[in-house]
């Protein structure tokens, strides 16, 4: 039994661009105290299961879309646990060839990890090979004209660690975008990371602004400005990004509160401001 029905009901398909035939980037921005993992999980689930109300096929014949999930901030165990608490069996998706996890995180820090068979590990010493490794995963899941959804998590760590410049990351994302229908990426947007004269702050600002300009929709997650609350974890705002997605392709904007039942994992409830 899913624990995300409220989320699906509130988003109800109308908040995202309807067109799926052109490369589109969706950006999720989050603060230090509000993780975006739960929203990434929602998009995985919406894409693979194509539940009523998921964003891809409103007013069309339902069509499931597999997912390539590229993470530079977590290993697969973290997400398996999170998805389990949300009522989703990630291993089943992997077995059904609906989901490929590309781990860019582990080999950045561990030289010889215990490699899981179902996971694609990006080789830290060869950045040029990353493109081919992810491309192979996309091709493996591609069914006819339908490209898989591509999700990037924690890309900003690459420029923070000096592994890639901001321009290289942006080119990397764009190259990958051209091979998938919808790409989703997350970025940190806390002002304490963006302000100041340090190179890191200036690069993070440039990176965030560039992603905003390339995205068709921006989901901004932030904590409550009034402090902690028992029944509200934070606020999510949906706005247009800088990229027009089609002739009328304006996302329906809105702002909601959400509540994570068990810290950053588990059930999620999204509701209109002022409601519960």
């Amino acid at each position, binding site marked *: 039994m899913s624990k995300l029905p409220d989320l699906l009901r509130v988003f109800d398909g109308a908040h995202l661009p309807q067109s799926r035939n052109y490369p589109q980037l969706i950006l999720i921005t989050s603060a230090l105290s509000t993780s975006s993992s739960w929203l990434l999980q929602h998009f995985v689930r919406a894409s693979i299961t194509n539940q009523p109300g998921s964003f891809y096929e409103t007013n069309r014949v339902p069509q499931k879309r597999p997912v390539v999930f590229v993470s530079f901030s977590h290993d697969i165990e973290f997400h398996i646990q999170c998805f389990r608490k949300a009522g989703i069996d990630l291993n089943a998706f992997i077995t059904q060839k609906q989901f490929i996890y590309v781990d860019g995180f582990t080999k950045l820090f561990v030289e010889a990890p215990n490699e899981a068979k179902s996971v694609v590990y990006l080789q830290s010493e060869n950045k040029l090979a990353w493109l081919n490794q992810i491309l192979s995963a996309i091709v493996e899941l591609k069914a006819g004209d339908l490209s898989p959804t591509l999700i990037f998590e924690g890309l900003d760590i690459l420029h923070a660690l000096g592994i890639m410049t901001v*321009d290289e990351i942006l080119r990397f994302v764009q190259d990958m975008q051209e091979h998938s229908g919808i790409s989703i990426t997350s970025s940190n947007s806390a002002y304490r990371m963006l302000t100041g004269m340090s190179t890191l702050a200036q690069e993070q600002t440039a990176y965030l602004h560039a992603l905003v300009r390339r995205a068709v929709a921006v989901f901004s997650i932030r904590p409550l400005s009034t402090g902690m609350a028992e029944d509200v974890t934070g606020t999510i705002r949906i706005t247009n990004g800088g990229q027009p997605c089609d002739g009328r392709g*304006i996302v329906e904007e809105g702002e909601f509160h959400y509540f994570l039942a068990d810290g950053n994992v588990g059930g999620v409830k999204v509701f209109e401001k002022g409601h519960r």
Partner: protein
Amino acid sequence: MQHHPPQHSPLLLNRLLCLKDVSPFVLVLDTPKQTAKYFLLEFIHRNREGSVPGLQIIFLSFETPAGSLDWIRCSSLQFVSCNHLPHKRIHDKVISLLRNDQKSLILVDSLSGVAAVDLVTFIAPLIRPASTLVAISHLPLPGHTALPTPSYAPSATTQLLYLATTIIKLSPKPEIDIDEDDLASDTFLLPLGSNSAQCRLEFLHRRKSGRAVQGSFKFDFTTHTLTFIPTSTTAGDSGGTTEQGDDALLKDLTTFNLGTTEKQRIARDNVELPYLKAQQGDMTGPVVGGAIVYEFEKEDDYDEEDPYEDPF
């Protein structure tokens, strides 16, 4: 710089969009809160129906993925992905696509990827006879101004402002919703209403003569309309606000009264100032209001090179 009457600017901007008037380099400035992509697409929309015979449209993409403009369905649009190409290769590609005698429209989705020191050498070969170059340059938000490299050189935006023959600046609709939460937030946040297909547009066109035409518009991509915003209305509004603001500042500042009452203000407005009256007169009657009128005659010995001899 002398400005042209504002009523000319709506007509001129529409003519520029349809390429009936030539502006070799149109610079379009935007911010993360209001994208200029819709304005770039407006150029394609207005010229895709074959209104200009043989027109070639070349789209140089630095941040638009290939395939994401397919929905425009413009057969004369040639998409060039520039992400991995050196500038020389981009120039060669453009020249190979252009036919010499035909009109062309070259669109650049962002100049932000071009380093400040390379800007002029990148742009110059793209400005060609019978072609219009339209390029977007992204402005950072206030508080995020990047230092130019090297720091004593003019910034990229400054260089572009000097080069451009037409400058368009886009900003969100004034009625955009910024609530208290936005101001209190410690994260980067786009206000609701950002990056809409309807926005405000500031326009400045430099004519060959040196005169400039400028104006403000409401731009709507969904209906493809430009609505002129008369400057007199906004000037009047701001004048009134300033006067009221002055009064508020002066209140309780001293023990005596520095402000003006409404009655005093009306009385002051009704005072007829002599020099104003003199300017309004037709200067042909017997009273000429103290103006010195000198009519130059044939016999007058006027030496153009003598700075001290000025009969006027």
